[in-house]
Structure formats: C-alpha cells, structure tokens
C-alpha cells in the first residue's frame, strides 16, 4: 500500500520534470503515459480502501476510503486530460508544449498529493501548491485576458487560503488542549479526541475553513475568480480545474466537517454548509442563463455542482453522503467531458462565443453529438452517474426531513438544466448563418475525442451499474463521514 502511495506521489512530479527537458513530441507522450499509469495506481488502492479500515500510512500520509474517492476523480481526469492534451497541443510551438505539459503533470501531482496528506497542515500546503501551479497555467496563454484572470485567481485564492491557514491554526489550538503541544495536526487523533475539544475554536476553525477553502471550491460569495480562470485557461487545464481542483478543496472542507461534526454535533456544520450551498446553487443556476462564453457557462455549472455537494453534506443522511461522494466522481467525469467537448468547438470555430458556434452536429460529426451527451449527463439525465448521485442526495434529504432544502435543490437544478441545454442546443443545432463562411466537417484531432468517449463510458457505468468494489468504497467512506 505504502509503495503504491509513494509511486502516486513521485510519478507525476517526475513526469513534469522530464517534460521540461525532452522534445515537445515526447513531452505529450510522457504526460499521457504518466496520466494513465497514475490512474492505474489509484485503482490499485481501491480494494484495500474499500474493505480495510483506516490506513494511517505514517504520521504524515493517509489513504482511507474518503481520500481514495477523491484520488479516483483526480486520477481519472489526469489520464483523460493527458490524452486530450496530445491533440490540443498539436501544432503549438515546442516551448509552449513543454511548459504546458510540465505544468499539467505538476498540477495533477499536487492534486493527487492533497488527499493523501495525513495532517491538516500538510493538506493546506498541498492545496496552496495547487493554487500556485494552476495560476501559472491560467496565465500560460500570455494574453491580456489570461493575465487578468490569473491575477484575480492568485490574489483571491491566496487570500482565501490565508483564512484556511487561520482555520488550521485554530484546529491546532483546539487539538493541543487535549493532545498536547507537540501534536502535528494529524486528522485521525483530532477526530478521535473530538468529544473533548473546546467548542469555540472548533466552531471558528470550521467556519474559517468553509470560507477559506470554499474560495477555491467556488462557493458563493467567494467564487468570483472561478469563471475568469476557467474561461481563460487552456482547455485541458480548465477541465482539471473544474473537475478536480474544486473537489480537492471540497475534500479539505470535508475533513474539517468530520472534526466539527464529531466535536459540536452535526447541527452547526450542517447549517453552515446548507447556507453556502443554497446560495451558490441559486447564483449559478441564474448565471448559466445568458452566458456568452461557453467556458464561462461551464464554469458557472461547476459552482452549481459544488453547491449541490455542500447541500448534500448538510443533509447528513448516509444516503445523501454516499450521493455526495458518487457526485464527486461523476461530476469530475461529466464536467471534464463537457470542457473537453467545448474545447473541440473552440478549436474548430476559433472562438469561445456561444453565439458564433453553429451547426456543430454537422461540422463535428463525433464531438458534436458527444458534447450534447456530455451536457445531458452533466444535467443529470439518466442513465448518467450524476442522475444517480443527485437522486441519492435528494432521497437522503427527504429521508432526513429536509424537505424545503431538497425541494429547492430540485428546482434550482432544473433551472440550471434549462440554461445549459439552451446554449448547448444552439451551438449544435442552429443552422449556420446565411452567407457565413463555414468550415468543412471534420474533427481537429482524434486524441480529443477518445477521452470524451472514455468519460461517457465511466458516467454510464456509474449511473447504470457501479462496480461492487466502488459501491463498498462509497458506503465505507459515507460511514466515515457520517460517524458521530
């Protein structure tokens, strides 16, 4: 187990370093191999995490069921995006390809490292590293807009993470009252000692963590960097940002939730998450209407889904928690698919404007229909995995008596569905303008189609019949989160 974890922590970083020194063609290949191999390594962790109890690997590393779920989401995306990048980067100059490939590997490395950290302090450091690397990736296009987006991102996210650091420090203060001065902020001892922790610092730490890490999750009202960064980053980076980075930051909130729920009872942390979740969902479901930039549209959809996660945790019922964990994986696959599909459109049409993309079904014989399927899957139409996860969340909410919140969730998700689908059908089905110069039908690159197919396969698998190992992994993780 430890060997696999160490391999996950070394391989992507090594690939990133190698990419800087080799020819551009090889850099794309190394990235793809590293991505697929990393996903394989993560899969190797599943059986043990699904059945084993806790895996405290050392004082500083930890791989339990909850962390493996987030690793699965990131690992899959890393593999998919690495293949996609081979097509996306084709034709760019060698220096750009090398830097972008190295950045992608390093970014994936930081996101794979975060859920493996056994201490809240190391978790904070890993998430800060993801900010630093991804800010450089957002700026990599070297345009005015990219520089603006990167500046807003790094400033807002770093300020948010300073609050998260404050949260970590108060968690240490609370823990040190029980566990002694030389306690290293390891997660498990803190949860075990939760009943004896002083209440006020834990409450403060939890709220600061929700606001601080919530900045990177994209919770309202600290989401403002998100649409800018998602729209200006290169598409493979946008896919990783949306599908994985937001989830990894949510993972940090979940760890604080575990401690807070054990120390304070679940009432206070649930109420806080519910408030942030509903506000985010409301904002996002209104903002998806009338978005002119397709990547901003998808970015607001990410805010929506992060709101759903927060609401799901606030329900607290085991079914809802299982739904949340499934949602993390399904959203990673679906959102990455949508971004990768939209990326093909932006390459084909040379613009990100929704209104300028027309007749996609004819011009992109594969990516057009696949994009539509991806948007359907993202909007929770069965048999997508997102349908199953949202169904579980709503069922859990109704089961735990949160009728109003469950109803609000259903209404706002439906609203967002209309917003998304209006834009997507316009891009695909509205006929080209009369007299407009239209391109020849054809795909920019087969490498940009394959990962979308893989993503759809995963979504259908999660929706129709999740593998037994995965189901027991989720059950196990939900039990950990729900344990009082």
């Amino acid at each position: 187990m430890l060997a696999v974890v160490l391999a996950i922590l070394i391989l992507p970083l090594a690939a990133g370093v190698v990419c800087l020194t080799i020819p551009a063609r090889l850099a794309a290949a190394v990235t793809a191999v590293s991505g697929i191999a990393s996903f394989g390594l993560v899969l190797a962790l599943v059986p043990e995490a699904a059945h084993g109890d806790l895996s405290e690997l050392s004082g500083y590393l930890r791989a339990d069921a909850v962390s493996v779920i987030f690793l699965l989401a990131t690992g899959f995306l890393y593999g998919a995006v690495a293949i996609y990048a081979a097509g996306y980067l084709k034709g760019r100059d060698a220096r750009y390809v090398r830097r972008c490939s190295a950045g992608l590997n390093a970014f994936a490395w930081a996101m794979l490292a975060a859920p493996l950290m056994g201490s809240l302090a190391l978790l904070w450091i890993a998430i800060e590293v993801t900010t630093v690397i991804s800010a450089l990736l957002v700026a990599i296009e070297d345009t005015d807009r990219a520089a603006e987006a990167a500046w807003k991102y790094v400033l807002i996210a770093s300020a948010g993470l300073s609050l998260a650091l404050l949260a970590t420090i108060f968690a240490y203060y609370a823990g040190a009252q029980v566990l002694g001065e030389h306690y290293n902020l390891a997660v498990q001892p803190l949860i075990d000692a939760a009943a004896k922790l002083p209440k006020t610092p834990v409450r403060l730490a939890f709220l600061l963590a929700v606001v601080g890490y919530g900045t990177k999750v994209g919770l309202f009202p600290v989401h403002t960097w998100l649409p800018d960064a998602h729209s200006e980053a290169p598409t493979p980076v946008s896919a990783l940002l949306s599908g994985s980075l937001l989830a990894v930051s949510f993972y940090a909130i979940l760890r604080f939730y575990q401690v807070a729920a054990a120390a304070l009872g679940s009432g206070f942390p649930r109420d806080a998450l519910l408030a942030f979740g509903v506000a985010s969902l409301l904002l996002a479901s209104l903002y998806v209407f009338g978005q002119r930039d397709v990547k901003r549209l998808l970015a607001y959809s990410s805010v929506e889904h992060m709101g759903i996660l927060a609401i799901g945790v606030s329900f607290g019922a085991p079914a809802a928690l299982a739904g949340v964990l499934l949602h993390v994986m399904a959203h990673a696959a679906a959102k990455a698919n949508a971004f990768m599909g939209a990326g093909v459109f932006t390459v084909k049409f040379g613009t990100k404007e929704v209104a300028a993309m027309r007749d996609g079904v004819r011009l992109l014989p594969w990516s057009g229909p696949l994009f539509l399927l991806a948007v359907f899957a993202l909007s929770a139409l069965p048999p997508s995995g997102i349908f199953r996860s949202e169904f579980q969340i709503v069922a859990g909410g109704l089961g735990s008596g949160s009728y109003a919140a469950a109803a609000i969730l259903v209404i706002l998700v439906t609203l967002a569905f209309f917003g998304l689908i209006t834009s997507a059908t316009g891009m695909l089905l509205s006929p080209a303008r009369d007299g407009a110069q239209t391109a020849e039908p054809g795909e920019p690159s087969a490498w940009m189609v394959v990962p979308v197919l893989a993503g759809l396969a995963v979504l259908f698998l999660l929706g129709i019949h999740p593998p037994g190992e995965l189901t027991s992994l989720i059950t196990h993780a939900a039990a950990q989160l729900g344990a009082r």
Partner: protein
Amino acid sequence: MSTAPGIYQGAANVIAALMLLLEFGMLRQALVRDQVRLYAAQSALISVLAVVIAADRNLPDLYALAALSGALKVVVVPLVLRRLLGAPVSEDAPGVAGSYTLNPASAVLACIGLAAFGFFTFGRLHIAGPAAPALALAIAAAMVFVAFGLMIVRRDVASQAVGFLTLENAVSLAALVVAAGLPLILETAFLFDLLVAVVVFGMLIRAHHTKAESLSTADLTRLQG
C-alpha cells in the same frame, strides 16, 4: 484580563500593536518601495516576537523559526518584490499614490472600523491559554481585517500583493500566539510555500506591468458576468 500582564504577555501585546500600526502605515504609503519597507519591518517584528516566545516558554525550535522567518520575510521577499516591481515603476509612473478607491482619510477611517470590528469580535471569543494572550490574538484578527481592507481600497497590483503578504503576517502572528508549539517542520513548510507564492505573485505582477504599462488594476475589467 483583570491582573497585569507578565513580561512575556506585555511584550507580545506591544509587538502585536506595533505590527498593526505598521499595517496602517502601508495603507497610507504612496510608494511601492516604502510599502515593501514597512512590510519588512513588520516581518522583523514577527521574528522578534518568536524569539521572545522561545525564551519565555523554552521552545528552542522557535529560535530556528525566527531566524528562518527573518531571512525569508525581512530579506528575500522584499528583495524579490523590489526587483520585480520596484525599479521601473518609480521612474515613469506615479507609484501607487493615485490608486485609492476612497480618499485616503476615508480609507483609513474605514480600516479603523474594520480593525475595531476584528478586535472586539475576536476579543469576545475568549480563546486564550498560557501560551495565548487574548489581546495579541484580537490584534491579529484586527490585522487580518485591515489587510483585506488594504487589498480593497487600493487599486493597484503592488498594494494588493503587499496586502496579501501582510495578511500572511497577521496569520503568522495569530499562529505564534495560539500555536507556538506547532512542529517546526510544518512552520518551515508554510514559509517556503509563502516564498513560492511570492515568486508567482511577482511573475504575474511583471506580466501585468508589461502588458498594461502600469500597476493599476482599474483596467482589469474585461472579464465580467
């Protein structure tokens, strides 16, 4: 609070208060160079506080932390910042003097309000122990609010970056008073993380500066909605 503070507590409170004053100084400074200088002074105070705590509570780790923090935040970070944004700006651009969204007096008044809010709310939480003078923690909270204020009322990338760095100093102050025993390895990791963040901030400021030919953020309005 009813008894007089001991030497250590008194020193911690005085240093915290001085740090808050320096923060208001940054709010008023017109030149990037001077802002960075005040930041260095504030960081030096953090190191002094670490030495005081190390002596008082017999935590030898903190001497190492004080030295490392001093080397990074008093020397390296200001050098990096000055290199990346100091020289070209002071010649052809009017520094950051004209970047107020409010007029200076209102900005300071607003930040005094913020500081008071932070001070009294955290003061009421009664988070204190043998290692944590409640007053110093309340001042750290006030600093956090003023740092956010600095980022909001000044419309230039340099002030925003300095605002972030001083926010980090405020968090360091809070960490010293409530979490002095935190293992050195973690504190060190936090510091190196800060250094990396500063380099990235610097690179982005540089990119902004070459593109916009000013430090102002007033034109960063292309991405909306």
